[in-house]
């Protein structure tokens, strides 16, 4: 049997593509159905039920606030780290390896690790107590210390997820040809000018990728919050999880899932619109 050779690539890709389409398409359709129908008719009852629950608005607020605090800080930190590391020095390989370790650590583990740092008998408190800077431990956890829990989450997430941005930015940095910087140096630009006028503009695509990736994942933040704060700090994924597993409310959980999806799409589109790098668009 002679198969037309131009169909071969399609056959090879089909299984993977179909698989992905199913695992994305089916849940999406199912979620829309579960969220917006009741007894077979279109209904906004579930939406009403979710929107009148104060936990929903808290979850929305906290998810967005956490992302708004964490993501820009991570990008700034990652740029500083990448710039610092992108030169020849003793121990460079080990440093880069160390900086990428958090990539391998799950959000649950990261939460537990930071608990060891910030708990009442944790490292930070013991250190400060023994130096004499404080007399009583700083409490990071517990419902009445919610704002401290927020801080703990921010710290833990900065620790865990900056590595992802770091790797993206570093890869982008290494793609910038040395000669571009040497030319700028020859023509009079000092380090900061080179940074501003050559490096950062050429880094824009990487920064854009990093922002999109991190923001989208920040919308789904779950394990780290669950471990460090439980439902003290409600977040969208967490509330969805709780509604599904504890209260068996499939419809409400679907709404939470759809809100996450909606936010992701809006933010992704905004990033793409506002961060276009014109010089990449033009073709000779």
């Amino acid at each position, binding site marked *: 049997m002679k198969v037309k050779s131009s169909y071969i690539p399609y056959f090879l890709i089909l299984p993977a593509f179909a698989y992905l389409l199913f695992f994305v398409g089916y849940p999406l359709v199912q979620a829309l159905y579960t969220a917006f129908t009741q007894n077979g008719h279109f209904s906004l009852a579930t939406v009403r039920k979710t929107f009148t629950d104060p936990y929903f608005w808290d979850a929305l607020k906290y998810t967005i606030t956490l992302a708004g605090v964490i993501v820009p800080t991570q990008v700034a930190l990652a740029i500083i780290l990448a710039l610092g590391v992108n030169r020849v020095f003793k121990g460079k390989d080990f440093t880069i390896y160390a900086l990428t370790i958090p990539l391998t650590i799950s959000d649950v583990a990261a939460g537990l690790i930071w608990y060891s740092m910030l708990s009442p008998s944790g490292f930070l408190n013991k250190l400060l107590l023994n130096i004499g800077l404080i007399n009583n431990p700083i409490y990071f956890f517990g419902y009445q210390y919610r704002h401290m829990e927020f801080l703990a989450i921010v710290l833990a997430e900065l620790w865990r997820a900056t590595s992802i941005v770091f790797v993206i930015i570093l890869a982008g940095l290494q793609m910038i040809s040395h000669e571009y910087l040497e030319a700028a*140096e*020859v023509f009079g*630009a000092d380090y900061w000018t080179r940074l501003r006028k050559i490096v950062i503009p050429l880094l824009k695509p990487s920064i854009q990728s990093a922002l999109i990736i991190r923001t989208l994942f920040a919308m789904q933040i779950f394990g780290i919050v669950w471990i460090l704060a439980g439902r003290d700090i409600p977040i969208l994924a967490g509330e969805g999880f709780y509604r599904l597993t504890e209260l068996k409310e499939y419809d409400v959980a679907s709404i939470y899932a759809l809100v996450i999806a909606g936010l992701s799409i809006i933010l992704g589109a905004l990033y793409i619109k506002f961060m276009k*790098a014109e*010089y990449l668009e*033009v*073709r000779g």
Partner: protein
Amino acid sequence: MVEVRLENLKKYFGNGKVKAVDGIDLTIKDGEFLVLLGPSGCGKTTTLRMIAGLETPTGGKIWFGDKDVTYFSPKDRNISMVFQSYAVWPHMTVYDNIAFPLKIKKHPKDEIDKKVKWAAEMLPIENLLDRYPAQLSGGQRQRVAVARAIVVEPAVLLMDEPLSNLDAKLRVAMRAEIKKLQTKLKVTTIYVTHDQVEAMTMGDRIAVMNKGKLLQVGPPTEVYLKPNSIFVGTFIGAPEMNLLEVSIKEKENGLVLEGTGLEITLPEEFRELLERYINKSVIFGIRPEHMTIEGVSTLEHVKRAREIEGTVDFIEALGTDTIVHARVGEGNLIKIKLPGHIPLEIGSKVKIVVDLDNIHIFDKTTENAVI
């Protein structure tokens, strides 16, 4: 416009193990177009980068006029550079690329505009000013790099093999353009290349380098006709200079170059220089175009000539010239370049006429030219 002076310039890598540049003394005159010529790895690019300030010398000094700029950073040297890969910034338009050096130096806006347009017209690329590099061909990007380099009217203009990434035809055209540009601007220019044709056609003087050392400096004709070493003699000129091992012998009519199958009587004025080589081996060099074959071609402007015998081994018919490979004696193969199309038969015996005023004799051990 300054005079650039290199004083015992050295650059070693790996704790002194790799001697990329090993003691160069060179003065580049104000307004001169000097070519640094040599094979890959000879140290010419490293030398250029030290002059630019992109590499710090391990030893020696660099002077711009009467200023010691050895440890100055590039931006304080008032230089411009055209890089081998052009280094035209992809995220800026052509206009912004050219304007960059002026913007850094904080020139007023209308002055920048005037100068950018002036530089663009010189190349000429005025119609490309609002394009992005991705939209340009290699040749156009190269012109942007040159425009950018001249717009600041630097004291010294440095070029690192700027034509090597262009196709052959464009290269020939750009050679002339760059040279014309430099003559007009009168800026001290140091040009690095491994292409000896470029060096010969563009340089006011050529500085030949090999293995980190400067071998010979001089105007193109001087370096070509009077090479001071085997390396310089063979590196420049295509086809390469013929080299034969011979000995100097004393015979009745005077000193003689004696090799297998050839004997050339030398003029008396050579005696003084060759005195200590009598009965010793030397390397005899003669360029293919300084010989001819009796009966089929002639050599112009020959004052003195000698004849040797040979057998035609192979013929390269190039159209404009013919290169005859002839066997002299046992085993020695020499190339003779004759103008036009010369039909000769392989195996035929020929009389090769040698222009005596253009022979070279090199010391076998030092490889330096004696004659």
